[in-house]
């Protein structure tokens, strides 16, 4: 069963779980974690395609590598914004952030 579809399914599950987390978690850090999950789903996709379909095995790996780098940067920026928010609101609950609306 070590086939492309399995990997794609696993990736889809990871991605959807991440998405679910983003939609549902109130803890901003929890949301960030969920986004990391989504990126991992994409990563897994790249690696799977790389393994089963792609002509050049290096390309998918490089893709995944850079996505990791981006994820790191994203985490850094996300966390810093979350911390900045925390310093103002004394909370990292996303539901507190709903003053702008309509």
């Amino acid at each position, binding site marked *: 069963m070590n086939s492309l579809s399995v990997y794609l399914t696993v*990736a889809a599950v990871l*991605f959807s779980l*991440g*998405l679910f987390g*983003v939609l549902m978690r109130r803890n*901003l850090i929890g*949301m*960030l974690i969920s*986004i990391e999950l*989504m*990126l991992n*789903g*994409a990563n897994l*996709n*790249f690696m*799977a*395609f790389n393994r089963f*379909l*792609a*002509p050049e095995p290096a*390309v*998918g790996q*490089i*893709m995944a590598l*850079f*996505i990791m780098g*981006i994820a790191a*940067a*994203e985490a850094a*920026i*996300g966390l810093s*914004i*979350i911390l*900045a*928010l925390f310093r*103002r*609101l004394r909370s990292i609950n*996303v539901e*507190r*952030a*709903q*003053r*702008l609306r*309509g």
Partner: protein
Amino acid sequence: MMKWTLFTPELYYVAVASVFFLCSLEKKADPRRLYRWAVILAGVGLAVTVACARMEGFLFFDSYKVDLFSQVFKIFLALGMFFVTMVCSELYGIEPRKHAEFYFLLSICTLAMMMLVSAVELLTIYIALELSSYSLYLLVPMRHRADEYVETGIKYFMVGATASALMIFGMSYLFGITHTTYVADIIRKLPEVLNQPAAVVGLLLALGGFFFKQALFPFHIWAPDVYQGAANQVTTYIATASKMAAAAMVIRFVGMSTGQSEVFIQVLVALSILSMTFGNLVAIVQKDIKRLLAYSSIAHAGYMLIGILCMTQRGYSSAVYYALAYLVMNFACFMVIIKVAPDGHNLQIKELAGLHKRSPLLAMTLMLALFGLAGIPPTLGFTGKFLVFAAALEKGYLMLVIIGMINATISLYYYLIVIKAAYLLEPVREYGPVRVDPWTRVMSAALVIAMVYVGIFPDRFVALAEAAVSVLP
């Protein structure tokens, strides 16, 4: 070997970014001096970009393509950057000690978007896009005394991160189905496999990232909050320059399907209609002018998409023209907002009351810009809409055009409300005259003339846009 001269504008902006990075290390940077330097550097940047407009060639093993299309958008970006630095003379939205970083991030963002419009390889596109997004994520929460708007940054970030995750997920499908990351190769291979769901879904999700930048429905959700919550200058930048790159990329990506998939076009039509309608409807009830413009930008993304989804040369060129029009008109609006609210607060529509007395020039600029956004001749906004609709009708999308025009009528309503405030309402309390420095006067006059001139004599600009899109595969 590589012709590095092709890379001149980008290198120039790297240099600019370094300059401001160095400034940020300074103990105490004088905001006025920084402003002057920023204007000069941005102006030179515009000149450099224009000077490089006619260059063509490939860089970095074909992952970076310099052609008229990208150069035109680079000019738009440089123009946007220049515009935004111009209105930074009263940068009260940002803490004075962070001004250097502000300019730094602005240059980086511009640089990233310049790379974005030239990039023809998925990874490059992705990274460039992320770079520009990150700069903006950071610019948004920089607002001074932003207690009320503190949530903006996190909203922007979360939506952006989600959208970019969707995008990279879609790109992975594109990679999977076409086995390549080069746009040119994808365009070659995609039509064969377009009957596969993954191909179109990959394309659509990948487009999501740019739709996010463009604030197209359903990726628009950040726009109102961010427009309202960011400092006025930052909003200006987001509303003008950052839309340009997104438009270019949407053109590039939509072009991948080469009009082969009927369903894909229908989805784009639906998105465009939803975007126009949603944006215009919600804009009606807005009180904050920046928020109003946010919704209007959602609607305009829909109009622009009409041109793009035609997938013809005429359609793309109309979208390019529309992008230019949008840049100029939107900037004119924001310039007025910034000048009327020099302390950087968020301007309510009713605060514009009596603007025609407080500053006739600004009032006129605003009126013309809003009429332009509403698509009323003889402004360039009208010409843009006209071209877009012409392209759509050439493909026979009559209903789409009618819906677009009805939407334009709806939009006129809220633009008129703003104009009414500026021209008709008597101010509730005395606001005092608006301080308009000579530069702003020149700028206003130039904008007014540009809006009318390009609207009346569109020939050369249309030709330019057509030449630009003619290099697209």
